[in-house]
């Protein structure tokens, strides 16, 4: 192995996002332009991971291009299209996101990782790494995909 590239995952595929949501029991609703949240911005949360801190205008809270709905969760995940065509996921994390964090992990980590795994499988096949494709979970929770050309 001669180099290791660290990559920030980009959400570009709605289809894979739907698959990742489905693997956790959720459903991506295409064209749903609002997502459920507390409903009112109280200007009381400015942590690093807060949407406001990351440049999201509070006036747009609750608005999205698509939404991901999980049964028994009070709130929903909004899927918002960026100017470059990629997407970001947004949710209200107050009291665990109304159950979302229990299903999707804090910061939607499980949903993000599932998307990454599905994208990884797709990419390996697309780029010709189709032999002996193997998926294993490492002790730290990392999911490893390996394949040969």
């Amino acid at each position, binding site marked *: 192995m001669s180099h290791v590239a660290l*990559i920030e995952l*980009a959400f570009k595929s709605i289809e894979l996002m739907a698959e990742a949501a489905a693997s956790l029991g959720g459903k991506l609703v295409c064209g749903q332009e609002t997502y459920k949240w507390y409903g009112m911005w109280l200007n009381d949360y400015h942590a690093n991971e807060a949407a406001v801190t990351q440049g999201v205008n509070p006036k747009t809270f609750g608005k999205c291009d698509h939404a991901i709905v999980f049964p028994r969760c009070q709130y929903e995940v909004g899927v918002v299209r960026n100017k470059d065509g990629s997407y970001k996921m947004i949710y209200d994390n107050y009291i665990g996101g109304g159950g979302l964090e229990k299903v999707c992990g804090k910061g939607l980590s499980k949903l993000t990782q599932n998307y990454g795994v599905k994208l990884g499988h797709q990419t390996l096949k697309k780029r010709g790494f189709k032999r002996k494709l193997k998926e294993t979970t490492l002790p730290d929770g990392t999911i490893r995909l390996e394949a040969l050309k």
Partner: protein
Amino acid sequence: MSKGCIIDVKPNGEIEVKPQGYSGPECLKATREIERDLGEVESRDKTADYRKEPEKQAREAQA
């Protein structure tokens, strides 16, 4: 050695791509498209093999 690729998807969503069986700059070329498909490269660390393999090949070519 067979040419392969390892993709590690971390619990925080970060991804590491590790080409296998490539030597030197060839590995960068081999995985550039994969990296582009997955997202934006934050960093790229060359391992000792990156320098070792081309040197070995050069020595073999001279012999």
